[in-house]
């Protein structure tokens, strides 16, 4: 019990130090604020601006430019673009978060097992990792999504299982260096099993790296959802930024100059991806002391 409370205190101090460093870093702060804004919009927005994908407007409401009543105009079905945008933020962020979660778990498990086991297991796992690392991501996701069928869950799984290779590589190399530490040797000598060591001694030591990497994967996951939906692999039953862009392109909004239909969802994607990217770089700098020396 005593040991645990000391551990908890230490962890608290570490988290506090991390938060103050984030607040001091302009990039990290900007990214965090933008992301929090979108999360709040996704949670509370639909309460303020009710919207349904299935509620079409009248003919005279179709593809109207921004004006009174519809701040951001209407789409080709007479639906309010602002309402669509807010409803879409839910799915876009949810798909991004869940896909990132899957990717993080697979990448961390494969990286730790590969790095800790070494030899044949390492060799086999790394060849599989190479496969996912080198194979072009969009064609792979397109083929998988086309075969599994278009649903929100399939999209999440497809993005999750195709994007973990980078994490596995990073985690593996970190595991290799953690494994050489004396405390691991001591734990082995008092009879700890491999599973215990990987879970209680390796994982906490590679976690900061996983964290920074995860944020960069989240950026890629959001872009992937948008791109897959744009290419017609999205779930028509749900509103998402990618689906908006898909419909805008399909109905020729680009060539007719209906900018209000595709400019806002694109800007939202750019803002969220940029926020994640900035946070990722900043966290990497904070958590990876070597970079600071430069």
């Amino acid at each position: 019990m005593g040991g645990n409370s000391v551990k908890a205190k230490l962890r608290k101090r570490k988290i506090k130090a991390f938060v103050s460093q984030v607040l001091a870093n302009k990039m990290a702060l900007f990214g965090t604020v933008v992301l929090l804004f979108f999360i709040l919009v996704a949670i509370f927005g639909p309460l303020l601006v009710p919207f349904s994908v299935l509620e079409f407007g009248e003919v005279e409401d179709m593809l109207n430019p921004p004006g009174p009543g519809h701040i951001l105009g209407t789409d080709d079905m007479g639906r309010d673009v602002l309402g669509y945008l807010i409803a879409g933020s839910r799915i876009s962020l949810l798909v991004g978060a869940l896909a990132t979660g899957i990717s993080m778990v697979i990448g961390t498990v494969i990286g730790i097992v590969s790095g800790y086991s070494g030899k044949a297991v390492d060799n086999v796992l790394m060849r599989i990792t190479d496969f996912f690392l080198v194979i072009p991501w969009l064609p792979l996701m397109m083929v998988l999504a086309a075969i599994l069928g278009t649903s929100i869950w399939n999209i999440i799984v497809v993005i999750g299982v195709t994007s973990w290779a980078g994490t596995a590589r990073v985690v593996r190399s970190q595991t290799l260096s953690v494994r050489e530490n004396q405390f691991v040797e001591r734990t082995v000598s008092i009879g700890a099993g491999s599973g215990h060591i990987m879970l209680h001694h390796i994982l906490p030591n590679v976690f900061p790296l996983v964290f920074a990497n995860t944020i960069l994967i989240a950026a890629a996951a959001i872009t992937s959802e948008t791109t897959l939906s744009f290419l017609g692999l999205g779930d028509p039953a749900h509103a998402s930024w990618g689906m908006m862009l898909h419909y805008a392109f399909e109905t020729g909004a680009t060539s007719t100059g209906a900018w209000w239909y595709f400019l806002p969802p694109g800007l939202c994607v750019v803002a969220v991806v940029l926020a994640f990217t900035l946070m990722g770089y900043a966290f990497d700098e904070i958590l990876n002391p070597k970079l600071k020396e430069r």
Partner: protein
Amino acid sequence: MNKKRIAKKLLYAAITIFFVLVFNYFLFRILPGDILSMLSRSGKTTPEMVANIREMYGLDLPWYQQFFVYLENLFTGDLGTSFIYKKPVAEVIGSRILPTVILLGVAEVLAIVVGIVFGIVSAWKRGKAIDTGLLSTSLLLYSMPTFWLGMMLILIFCVNLRLFPINGMVTPGRVFADTWAYINDVVRHMILPMACMALVMIGEYAITMRSTMIDVLSEDYITTAKAKGFSNGYVLRRHAMPNAMLPMITLIAINLGLIVGGAIQIETVFSWPGLGNLMYGALVNRDYPLLQGVFLLTTVTVILANFLSDILYEVVDPRVKSMGG
């Protein structure tokens, strides 16, 4: 050059390609229904066609023998028949390679040159206004979905400014006076998709070049060179750049996968008649043999390119040779 290391890399590349073949085979077998029912859904079929397909794919054989039939067909260049074009997949793909290679080739060269220059300037002027400007532009470009950038370029340059044609590779139905008029027309169609592809890549090249350059510039030998009294430009050209270029070789190879993804999006947005557009069409029409064929071609090409870049890296960087393993 170490023959053992190259043999090992070659083996790894071969294993990865084998994975792709196995993956490709099983992926398209778990589809609902077999090839025959998919074909009959896609249009008219005669009993002769059915018999032909049965024989071609070895559908009466056990599954493991079907796999060997698949491999045999593959190595003889037989990728099946496209549902929509009603022609051999290899033939359909062949006619689409050149437009993609031209588009990507020009865009890639442009992006590498501009990206490297941006990166070097950024690193050299680290912390100054020009660095901040270039870095934020690069990050912004890096964060944009490729297809959306394409849509924005069309909106600005085609719809509002009316500078370029919206889509395609040549003006349909136009009769050209001579070859120059034809080339001129193609170039006008190509400028926007090429610029779009290049812009997307510039961001990443610039960011990577900047960070390697910053690493290199903090090395002792740079300080030494400066202390010897060499000019800044000389140190940059002769001491810093050759070392900072090395990681770019790997990045360019790794990026090939991203470029393929970019080509699918850009060719779709601009209706450029290349492989990316072909794959999009195959996807929309669920033309599985065609989808499988394009997927196989792009994947194997990217794997081979990565293998070549590994070899190139080994030739260029003397340090790799002395390291074991």
